């Protein structure tokens, strides 16, 4: 019996017009309604960062955002991030440094790292650590993730 609302927004550069239930989260909109499953559902409570997307250029937890709030805004998901130059460098660097094990945290980290590098193209290790505080990884112990991001930041990677 949920009530719907019409919204228009830009998703990965493409204008979209949709009708969404008022109580739906942006994460549910992306995964369930639009089939963009790169964005992950981890905790649903803002703790793990697996659902991180960019909204008007800043990283947010899509599980905490109402889908209706996408109206008039610009969203970029990991699918959009990977299409960009920084996204591709990050992907290659994550692979090269072994920063991916089960991979569940990876999309959220790629999006968060993109935001981090957009704000600060040359972050030091402490800045990288602080920047990914909201992204949990159960597998890697973070070291390799930090190295992968640092490598892209230092522009050492030319793959």
């Amino acid at each position: 019996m949920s009530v719907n609302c019409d919204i228009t927004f830009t998703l990965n550069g493409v204008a979209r017009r949709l009708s969404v239930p008022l109580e739906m989260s942006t994460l549910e909109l992306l995964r369930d309604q639009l089939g963009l499953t790169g964005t992950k559902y981890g905790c649903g409570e803002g703790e793990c960062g697996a659902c991180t997307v960019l909204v008007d250029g800043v990283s947010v937890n899509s599980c905490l955002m109402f889908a209706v709030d996408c109206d008039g805004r610009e969203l970029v998901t990991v699918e959009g991030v990977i299409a960009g130059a920084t996204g591709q460098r990050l992907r290659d660097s994550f692979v090269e440094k072994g920063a991916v094990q089960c991979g569940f945290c990876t999309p959220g980290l790629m999006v968060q790292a993109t935001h981090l590098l957009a704000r600060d193209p040359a972050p030091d290790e402490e800045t990288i650590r602080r920047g990914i505080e909201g992204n949990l990884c159960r597998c890697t112990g973070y070291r390799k993730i930090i190295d992968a991001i640092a490598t892209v930041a230092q522009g050492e990677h030319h793959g």
Partner: protein
Amino acid sequence: MAATVHGVQSYVAPRSLDEALAVLAGGGVSVLAGGTDLMPQARAGRRPLEPVLMNIRRVAGLGGVDLAGGSIRIGALVTVTELRDSALVRERLPPLWQACDQFASDQIRNVATVGGNLCNASPAGDTLVPLLALDASAVLAAGSGDARRTRRVPLAQFFTGPGRSCRQPDELLVAVEVPEPPAGSVGAFHKHGTRPALDISTISLAVAARRDGAVLRDVRIACGAVAPTPIRAPRAEAALEGRSPDAATIEAAAQAALQDVHPISDLRASDWYRRELVHNLLQRVLSHVSQL
């Protein structure tokens, strides 16, 4: 997926304060700012949504951090990231800046608003404690057009219990006003949690004072998560007022603070542990402040 939220009948995203206040006057409204409290609370059934969901993020005039007429005005929609990026906040309101720096994660800071933090009124809310020590007031508005009423409530009177404030259902928090700290002001914020950032603080402390030669004046100390609301610590303040913050004075203030707090025991920490923390944390913050 988590249980869905039921009961929302309509969604509005007003662009002006007048419009927003007219919607509020109609009653049955859930105000949505960043949603970082509203969404999880609604989903968990702790605070069911009202029939009208009003998104205030597009309301003009609720942003900005500005110094004018001896006070620093922080718009209700200013995010924790914006506070952390503000040179005015970093230079003039260090306890608030430090609280924002230690607040949750980047993703949460990017959306969490100061208005939402205050209106959610958690005894562990991180901006509440420095704002209380900085003697801030909440600016509340109600009614539209000619019937517009605005009142200023000192934060010391704003919080009435866990999750409760004196904000009336037809009122919107439009801004927080902080008196411009005078020359020689010093201050610091410190929080203790099991995980530095993301965890809700077990306790937090903020100190603001003015250095007058060797002594401290206008000392204000605020504590979070040691009582049903964030509180001032008047006995500890009195122990410091007009004194030089040497080791003996700091110890006397830390002892006095134990009479000021009424911590609870919960799954995060016992009452005894929280008292120990208040003592030790206040000692540490005061030693830091004495060296500024």
